[in-house]
């Protein structure tokens, strides 16, 4: 037994509790401390991944009480993959936030509170992906929900508070449904542990089919609301576009996907792929994710505010992840899992680049971006790399996940979804390319005026852009982990 993954959650919880105390000292460098803690988190996640690569996946029992009486925590490849994604992104976003937050939050102790909430969110996200117990998933989900809403509402603007309230109400509806679903399953199986439940469910399904089916639909709708599955996405554009930039990057890049993973874990590991595909739920999810992919893209085309456009694009991108999971084929799930990482990297990159433009120039309107390539060449280059990857140009990481999704659709004998992926890529191009073209070619004076950014902003963007390109050319290792993860879900 290896304690690293559990220490990860403990570290973040301790940091979240300790920060307000340490922050009482006015000279306390909260930003530096936050980056350091997240760095430790990344090291822990990497060490845990190294351990799993050496000795294989395992289950962890807090207090040594064995399942099903004790609580089980699973350290499988999905957990490892998500832990690496979450903590890597967290470090980069926190580095960025040290330069950006003073402008968005104003002075005072707001920064300390912000980092405290951010660590609470990280603890919840890391917890959700390794919980192997329905009630644990619920509790971490709630911690994550409150922290995420607070990260939107912390900015002293009325729009943010309103967006956060909408987010909170819809999330609370979702969590109510999830809790009711957990109750319905507990009623017929007598377990909360996902592994024990998987064994009890076929018999329970034969005796009480309605309980099991209603619980499944409650999970899909409840977690779908939190993950912004179309048409339950209504809270997302306001919340993600009005939040401070580091929050936007973390919310769009990480939070919505973790709920998608929680849903997939319940579906594949409690219900099992076989039972799941015997009832027409995958087809329903496929229809909704397709509708989301198109609706998100079409709505994004109509936006004039750059952060709002990126938020709508997240609605479309989460559709790809659900599409991959609902295909219930090896390649489809690999594509979905890969897209979690690829989208996390490129959407954070795009949000950080947009945030840097707003930081330096205050420009939020897309039409005002003309000539920005000459004022902020590095930022716009990073933005262009993210945009190309979003569209799925070969050589960028976005292409790899779409490639696997397309193969998954073929393997599932549903070639129409290949067409969906191709067409939606074209739609992505419709709203991303004009920005890139306008920024580099849309201005008369081709005078280079280099607006320098703080290094804390450029470094995360350069790293993310490099990751997008490197993983687009050499995706081998990432694909291997995603295949191992998907293999565990399909058995």
């Amino acid at each position, binding site marked *: 037994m290896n304690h690293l993954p559990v220490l990860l959650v403990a570290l973040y919880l301790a940091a979240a509790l300790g920060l307000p105390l340490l922050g009482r000292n006015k000279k306390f460098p909260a930003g530096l401390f936050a980056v350091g803690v997240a760095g430790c988190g990344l090291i822990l996640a990497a060490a845990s991944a190294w351990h799993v690569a050496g000795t294989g996946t395992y289950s962890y029992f807090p207090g040594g009480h064995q399942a099903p009486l004790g609580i089980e925590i699973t350290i499988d490849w999905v957990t490892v993959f998500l832990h690496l994604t979450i903590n890597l992104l967290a470090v980069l976003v926190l580095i960025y936030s040290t330069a950006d937050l003073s402008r968005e939050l104003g002075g005072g102790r707001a920064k300390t509170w912000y980092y405290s909430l951010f660590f609470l969110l990280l603890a919840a996200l890391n917890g959700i992906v390794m919980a192997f117990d329905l009630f644990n998933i619920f509790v971490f989900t709630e911690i994550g929900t409150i922290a995420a809403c607070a990260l939107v509402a912390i900015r002293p603007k009325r729009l943010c508070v*309103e967006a956060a309230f909408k987010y909170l109400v819809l999330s609370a509806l979702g969590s109510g449904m999830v809790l009711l679903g957990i109750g319905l399953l507990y009623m017929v199986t007598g377990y909360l542990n996902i592994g024990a439940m998987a064994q009890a469910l076929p018999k329970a399904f034969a005796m009480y089919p309605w309980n099991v089916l209603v619980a499944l639909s409650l999970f899909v709708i409840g977690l779908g609301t939190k993950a912004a599955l179309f048409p339950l996405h209504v809270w997302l554009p306001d919340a993600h576009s009005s939040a401070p930039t580091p929050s936007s990057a973390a919310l769009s890049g990480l939070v919505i996907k973790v709920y998608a993973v929680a849903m997939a874990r319940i579906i594949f590991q409690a219900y099992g792929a076989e039972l799941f595909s015997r009832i027409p739920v995958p087809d329903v999810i496929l229809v909704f994710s397709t509708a989301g992919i198109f609706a998100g893209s079409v709505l994004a085309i109509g936006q004039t505010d750059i952060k709002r456009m990126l938020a709508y694009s997240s609605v479309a991108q989460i559709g790809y992840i659900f599409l991959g999971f609902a295909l219930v084929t090896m390649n489809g799930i690999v594509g979905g899992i890969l897209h979690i990482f690829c989208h996390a990297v490129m959407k954070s990159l795009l949000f950080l680049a947009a945030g840097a433009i707003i930081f330096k120039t205050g420009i939020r309107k897309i039409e005002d971006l003309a000539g920005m390539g000459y004022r902020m060449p590095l930022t716009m280059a990073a933005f262009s790399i993210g945009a190309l990857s979003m569209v799925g140009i070969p050589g960028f990481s976005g292409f790899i996940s779409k490639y696997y999704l397309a193969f998954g659709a073929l393997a599932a004998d549903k070639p129409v979804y290949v067409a969906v992926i191709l067409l939606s890529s074209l739609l992505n191009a419709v709203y991303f390319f004009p920005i890139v073209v306008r920024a580099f070619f849309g201005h008369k004076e081709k005078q280079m005026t280099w607006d320098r950014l703080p290094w804390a902003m450029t470094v995360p963007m350069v790293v993310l852009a490099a990751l997008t390109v490197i993983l687009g050319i050499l995706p081998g290792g990432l694909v291997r982990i995603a295949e191992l993860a998907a293999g565990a879900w399909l058995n």
Partner: protein
Amino acid sequence: MIAKLISNMHFLTAMVLFLIGFHTMLTHSNLIKKVMGMNIMETGIFLFFISVGYVRGGSSPIAVPGAEGYINPLPSALILTGIVVSVSLTAFALALIVKLYNYYGTVDADKIMQLRGGEE
């Protein structure tokens, strides 16, 4: 049928409460009423959980001489956590409403939407 319903009264009540809360949350424009709906919905879920663990004639799960059958203690323990979650959600929602009232001078969602207008 009716007898069955009456003997499972608590499940029926739980579902009715859940739906009342759900409906209140989605249809009322008053933000305070939305929060009330949230609480009613969660109460319905708590009642449902407690009913799942209830054993007719069972005694509380403490080993005492002469007890025949115990009530399942797990759902009650879970709901204790559920109540804590619900209280924190309510507190946070109310705090947001206070802030919204300071910014907009109203707690009506429709009026807030009007005031907001085309503001980005």
